[in-house]
């Protein structure tokens, strides 16, 4: 019975076996084809798909270049820090994990939970950026799923608020935002590299395969600034602001022989390492971005025109009686009637009347041409972001007498403190104008361009010696160790509807040491409160202290003329010379 029933089905068995064998063979064939053939969705395609699921290209961060001062002191540098991030899709929001992570980000646990919820559909959320590598390691040690760390660079400014407006700062993505960081961003920024890694299902790197592109580290920038002089300038400026209740201030110091900016201080300042309480007003580098009417500090420059004309020598006398002068509809007074004085004394006493008379005598064009040749109204091309080129009037008619006289004593045009310092550096160098440089210059002397005859420049410098001597307006600019020359200035500030009566800028511009000038410096004190507001009272003392300390630091031989002591070596003892 059984056999009879089974027998007819034997062929079925073989058929089935045969079909299965064929299917199996097809399967093998297909597998072999996928491995060997490149047709259609063949080997290459599959390889690529496989890699796409496990191999990732990561960027390798490159560090930003260092900014140093002229002696190699570091002003800005990048150090690696870690940024913790989370993939909310993989993260298990347990209480203890939330507690740890919320502590790292400095949030309340509920706030962190809410943030996590908002980003639950994304694969990426920062927990906290730029924390120390140790702290990041600690958190990673818990082994929470989906929590990762990536290396970033954070910018540190070791010199802090001493030079913050010059150096500027970067944003969290390491891009320059202000100052040198912005101006030289291209040189400073590194170029991130790329590397291939293999990742597992959870996104952990399990093997590093190859470097696709090596990271290019950022280049170094060496500034002309000497941090020691910069510190002296900031210290004295801050002190002056406190003493005189002033709003703001600037000190600029230029190297006469190279045009390098040795110091550029602005107060109030800010700490670039902690910018939470930073005020936008404190970020501005006033020495290059702010313009002001130079007031009496422009008189020596106008005097160049007078000497150039051949009509005047330092001894030419001018009658300033009766102590005021009427030009068209305006009266310009002197504080007292100086009577008949020579032009040297006009500068020493800063006589408006005398200067106006000289200006009206020689005319507008020569004064204008001297001021323009000194670089007023033209950018110094220092490359500093936001640098102002100042304001200089263009006349489409014959300038009036008032315009000529006011230009001669420093009104009606505006300059930056750096432009003013550059003009005095030109005087100091015997008439050679050198480009202002933010970056260190490798040579000791820059060729420059002659804009004033040497004889005239020397005469004006000699006239400026009288300003700091007894009877001049700038006696407080005199220093203990070095002979100086310079000019005071007290400029009315422009307020709403004309010049404000009780708001002043106190200025001093000068050079030192006067016999062989090394530096030219400008001090600006903005709105000194109280009854001392003259340049000679407020700005000159700052100039004196800054210049004295700076020259000492630069190892310049003291030019002591009064009490010179000469110690002769080789056992001859000490001789005192009068």
């Amino acid at each position, binding site marked *: 019975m059984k056999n009879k029933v089974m027998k007819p089905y034997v062929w079925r068995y073989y058929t089935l076996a045969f079909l299965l064998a064929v299917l199996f063979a097809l399967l093998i064939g297909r597998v072999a084809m996928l491995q060997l053939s490149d047709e259609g969705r063949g080997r290459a395609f599959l390889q690529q798909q496989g890699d796409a699921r496990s191999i990732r290209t990561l960027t*390798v961060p490159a*560090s930003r270049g260092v900014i140093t001062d002229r002696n190699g002191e*570091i002003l800005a*540098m*990048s*150090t*690696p*820090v870690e940024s913790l991030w989370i993939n909310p899709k993989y993260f298990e929001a347990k209480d203890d994990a939330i507690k740890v992570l919320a502590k790292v980000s400095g949030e309340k646990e509920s706030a962190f939970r809410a943030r996590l919820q908002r980003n639950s559909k994304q694969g990426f959320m920062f927990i906290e950026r730029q924390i120390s*590598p140790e702290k990041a390691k600690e958190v990673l040690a818990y082994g929470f799923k989906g929590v990762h760390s990536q*290396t970033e660079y954070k910018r*540190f400014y*070791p*010199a*802090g608020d*001493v030079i913050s407006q010059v150096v500027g700062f970067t944003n969290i993505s390491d891009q320059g935002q202000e100052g040198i960081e912005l101006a030289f961003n291209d040189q400073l920024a590194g170029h991130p590299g790329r590397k291939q890694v293999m990742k597992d299902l959870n996104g952990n790197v399990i*093997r*590093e*395969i*190859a*470097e696709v592109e090596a990271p290019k580290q950022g280049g170094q920038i060496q500034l002309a600034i000497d*941090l*020691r002089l910069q*510190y002296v300038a900031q*210290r004295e400026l801050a002190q002056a602001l406190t003493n005189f209740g002033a709003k703001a201030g600037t000190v600029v110091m230029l190297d006469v022989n190279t045009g390098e900016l040795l110091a550029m201080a602005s107060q109030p300042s800010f700490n670039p390492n902690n910018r939470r309480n930073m005020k936008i007003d404190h970020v501005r580098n006033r020495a290059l971005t702010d313009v002001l009417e130079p007031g009496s500090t422009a008189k020596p420059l106008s005097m160049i025109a007078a000497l150039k004309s051949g009509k005047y020598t330092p001894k030419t006398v001018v009658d300033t009686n009766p102590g005021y002068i009427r030009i068209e509809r305006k009266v310009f007074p002197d504080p007292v009637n100086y009577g008949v004085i020579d032009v040297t004394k006009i500068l020493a006493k800063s006589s408006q009347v005398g200067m106006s008379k000289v200006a009206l005598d020689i005319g507008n064009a020569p004064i204008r041409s001297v001021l323009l040749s000194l670089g007023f109204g033209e950018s110094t091309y220092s490359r500093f972001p936001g640098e102002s080129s100042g304001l200089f009037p263009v006349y489409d008619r014959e300038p009036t007498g008032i315009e000529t006289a006011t230009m001669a004593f420093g009104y009606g045009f505006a300059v930056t403190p750096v432009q003013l310092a550059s003009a005095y550096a030109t005087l100091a160098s015997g008439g050679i104008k050198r480009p202002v440089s933010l970056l260190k210059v490798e040579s000791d002397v820059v060729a420059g361009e002659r804009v004033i005859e040497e004889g005239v420049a020397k005469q004006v410098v000699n006239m400026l010696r009288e300003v700091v001597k007894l009877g001049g307006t700038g006696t407080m600019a005199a220093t*203990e*160790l070095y002979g100086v020359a310079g000019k005071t200035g007290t400029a009315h500030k422009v307020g709403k509807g004309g010049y404000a009566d009780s708001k002043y800028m106190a200025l001093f511009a000068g050079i030192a040491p006067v016999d062989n000038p090394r530096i030219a410096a400008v001090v600006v004190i903005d709105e000194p409160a109280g009854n001392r507001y003259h340049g000679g009272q407020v700005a000159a003392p700052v100039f004196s202290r800054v210049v004295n*300390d700076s020259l*000492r630091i630069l190892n310049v*031989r*003291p030019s*002591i003329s009064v*009490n*010179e*002591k*000469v*110690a*002769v*070596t080789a056992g001859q003892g*000490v001789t005192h010379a009068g």
Partner: protein
Amino acid sequence: MLVLVLGTAVGVEYMAHQTRQLFSELQRMVRHEENLRADWGRLLLEMSTWGAHARVEKMAREKMGMDVPKLDDIEVIKQ
């Protein structure tokens, strides 16, 4: 022929292995460099805090009683 093919096959594998090993060594050193750079940055920051001009000046004046020499204390020495 077969021997050559096998030989080069082993060679290829060996070189790949070497590459991977050297690359992981490189990565280790890069990480080491980063750590050193981080330390350097921290130390530099520390140095600038301790050596800030303002602090040095204060210490010199107050703790060590130093001062900038006055005019009368300066002697110019000529060779």
